[in-house]
């Protein structure tokens, strides 16, 4: 199974590039043109990632993070969510760059191959930044059912977190 997934990425590239060449696309130029748009995107994310990473370091050093996790742990343990990933669950719907920062912190602290880290990765992948989508995509669009959609998204997010933690335990 592992071997199968290791094959996917090289196969994707092999097929894409040979197909593009067959369609008379200048692969080198086209690939470079795509890469060109990556640095501006990262540059626009960097300030926010930096600020949130500094904040999360402060949370750790001041002990507030541990205290928050302690207060929330009854709820999380009731839902079957390890309390180590509580900060990720809290920040995920609010900020995309913030959750990347928190995720990398968790990976570093608990080791990339631990159960906690696997859980965190799946939780990170399990949804998009709900409030960001609500604010930016639907800017200026006034619909009565908008709040209902927001609630449905958040409920699905929470359900997916619970499901993710359960799945990581058995897979």
């Amino acid at each position: 199974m592992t071997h199968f997934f290791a094959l996917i990425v090289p196969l994707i590239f092999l097929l894409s590039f040979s197909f593009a060449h067959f369609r008379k696309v200048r692969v080198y130029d086209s690939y470079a043109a795509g890469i060109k748009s990556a640095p501006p995107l990262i540059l626009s994310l960097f300030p926010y990632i930096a600020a949130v990473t500094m904040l999360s370091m402060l949370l750790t050093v001041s002990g507030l993070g541990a205290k928050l996790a302690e207060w929330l742990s009854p709820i999380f343990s009731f839902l079957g969510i390890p309390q180590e990933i509580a900060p990720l669950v809290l920040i995920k719907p609010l900020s995309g760059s913030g959750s990347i920062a928190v995720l990398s912190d968790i990976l570093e602290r608990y080791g990339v191959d631990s159960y906690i880290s696997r859980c965190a990765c799946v939780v990170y992948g399990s949804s998009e930044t709900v409030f960001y989508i609500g604010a930016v995509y639907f800017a200026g669009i006034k619909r009565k059912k908008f709040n209902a959609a927001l609630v449905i998204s958040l409920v699905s997010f929470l359900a997916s977190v619970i499901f993710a933690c359960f799945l990581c335990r058995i897979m």
Partner: protein
Amino acid sequence: MFYALSSAKPVIFRALTAYIIRMNILFTAVFLICTALLLFNAPEAFLPALIDGAGKSATLCLSLLATYALWMGLMRVWEDSGVARGISRLLKPVARKLFRTDDDEALGAVCMNLSVNLLGISGATTPYGVKAAKLLDKTPEAEYASAMFFVLNATSLQLFPASIVAMLTSMHSANPTSIILPTLFTTLFSTLLGCTLTFLFIRPKSKSKQPVSAPKILKTKGVSMR
């Protein structure tokens, strides 16, 4: 996509500002509480923590840059060779049923947004998402279609979570691809749940029993006839 962005700039700008203000309050509050706590506990740890955090974020952004470069390059090759159009053409029949519309332009934007979403490169989806939301708002079933689009984007099905796999690889995980299947199942679960809930609570056709819905039906007809 530039058309959609430029025509709606002031509104988006205002919404972004509102979002940023909310984040500002949260950030400032947590920052101040932490700093106040540190003043009593260990004031000498304040500066090292900040420097450590900034350094970590620089490393993180470098590894993210590597990931985004690799996948955004591939996405451009897909766009240029017509693969992207092919994928969205495959998704179109499903989208047509889900969003209850035949508007080709709206469906195209929706499909591009959803297929970029499948790769899990957050940030790259925004331009298509903004355009799709604008166009869906003009379709007959706007109330339902917008909600469905919101939920689908929020739960975002992940075929291949590219940025996480790359992040695990760069941190020397023994088996970075092991999270693909759990992520796929989890997002499949949440997407299905979200769709079902949307379908149940925000019905595609307004209930004719309620008096409020009467003008809505009229309006829908008017739009579809145009």
